[in-house]
């Protein structure tokens, strides 16, 4: 594999150097700005102070991170399972489309931050309301994209199958389902980005653990550094999870580009 040649490593380094360097420069400038101008840690803590606050939290930070990760993954799983099921129904039966679409739209126009307190009343401050909110924000992008993906199947390709069999399930398995895969992943990526926000927002309404809780706690206890720790870890978590979806797509999907999608 040429991936390991010196030259290709050099080329990769050149490719990634600008974004990495500019990020490092940004952090340094931040640090210098806070140090040189003596900015109060309450207004803007320095990167160094934020990292130290994170280290001081120790295992507690892991606990918060894990809580939020768990909520995101569970909500993501549930939301997308529902999304794929609904998409299938919508494409298969036009009646289902007329029944389900209004609910789909309503589920998106309902302000999630407003339903979250209601969910806390119903389900307590445990993990369940967070999973529900996360699932709610997750499923829409996937559902819309999978519907479009299933419909993107070339009608001629469907006729081709019909040369051999009229079976709609064969048409689904051999043409419609594979056609939808790139759309499915496009939906999953948007869905994952939304899931992170969903879990954090849900935690604001009532929680005693999680990164959203940490951010809120930092705010109410005048610990700006803790807020930054929460936000920072959330960003990293989001990137890792998004990257995981990207990796799955790379490994599974047959086409990674030129698919137009809905958000």
């Amino acid at each position, binding site marked *: 594999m040429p991936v390991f040649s010196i030259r290709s490593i050099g080329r990769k380094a050149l490719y990634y150097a600008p974004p990495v360097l500019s990020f490092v420069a940004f952090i340094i400038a931040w640090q210098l700005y806070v140090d040189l101008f003596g900015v109060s840690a309450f207004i803007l803590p320095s990167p160094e102070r934020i990292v130290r606050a994170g280290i001081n939290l120790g295992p507690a930070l892991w606990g918060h991170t894990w809580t939020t990760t768990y909520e995101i993954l569970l909500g993501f799983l549930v939301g997308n399972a529902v999304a794929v099921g609904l998409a299938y129904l919508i494409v298969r039966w036009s009646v289902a489309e007329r029944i389900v679409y209004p609910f789909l739209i309503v589920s998106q126009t309902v302000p999630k931050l407003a339903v979250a307190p209601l969910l806390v009343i119903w389900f307590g401050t445990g993990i369940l309301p967070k999973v529900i909110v996360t699932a709610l924000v997750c499923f829409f992008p996937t559902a819309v994209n999978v519907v479009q993906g299933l419909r993107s199947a*070339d009608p*001629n*390709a469907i*006729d*081709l*199958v*019909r*040369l*051999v*069999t*009229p079976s709609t399930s*064969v048409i689904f398995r*051999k*043409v419609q389902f*594979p056609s939808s*895969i790139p759309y499915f992943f496009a939906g999953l990526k948007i869905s994952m980005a939304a899931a992170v926000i969903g879990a954090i927002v849900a935690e604001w309404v009532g929680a005693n653990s999680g990164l959203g809780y940490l951010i809120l706690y930092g705010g109410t206890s005048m610990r700006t550094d803790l807020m930054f720790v929460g936000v920072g870890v959330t960003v990293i978590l989001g990137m890792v999870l998004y990257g995981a979806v990207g990796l799955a797509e790379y490994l599974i999907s*047959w*086409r990674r580009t030129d698919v137009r999608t809905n958000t």
Partner: protein
Amino acid sequence: MTDARPGADGAAQTAAHPAIRFQNIGLVYGRGTANEVEALKDVSFDVRPQEFVSILGPSGCGKSTLLRLVAGFLNPTSGSVSVGGVDPENARTNGLLGVVFQSPVLLQWRNVIENVGFLLELQGVPRRKRQETARHYIDLVGLGGFERHMPHQLSGGMQQRVSIARALAFGPSVLLMDEPFGALDALTRDRMAFDLLDIWKRDKKTVLFVTHSVQEAVFLSDVVIVMTARPGKVGLIRPIDLGRPRTKDHRLQMEFVEHCRVLLDELEADVGYH
């Protein structure tokens, strides 16, 4: 049109049924709705076994509709279609029909050999046998060595060859081709025409071929049918009595040019420009 025709071959005439028979076909899309379209009106003609028949006609005159009727993807509003003496749906499920579209219609997630073997796979042909057959037809269309390529790695002409190989590998006795070379450049198109004639002669297939090119139709066919538009009707049925095998020289013959002129006149009379 089963009357005596120069160049008609004896074996075909003794066959019990025409390969394809259109009898007083009428087809109306969206019947009873505001946008009702009468696509075909009183279309009747026969295609004999192993005959190569081309259809010419302006866009929207119902050429694709005609092919869809043969494949049984569509039912006529009036009249009847039969394929080898049976109704299209029967013919289709018996694997008598192969289809080539204007675009290659390849499954993007399958490589060349899997695309060519696709219909056989649906038929439940074992993998080993399927690959063997697919390989044979891949070689036949000149794509040996590209078995493992993905569709997006091939040029448009190569992709169309894959789709022709797929249709042939299925082993149909009737091949329906809807402007199969329409998207190709002139040179590739020319080569494909020769290749198609080779395959047609070797495999003894009946071909119903839609094209916009008068020259292509005359060059390939035993019979050329000109359709007129709105509603689609048969305007002219013209046997092409040039010898076979067809060679480049045929195109320079007076008879060839004369066929083209007559067909072109008929086409232009319909469209209305002179």
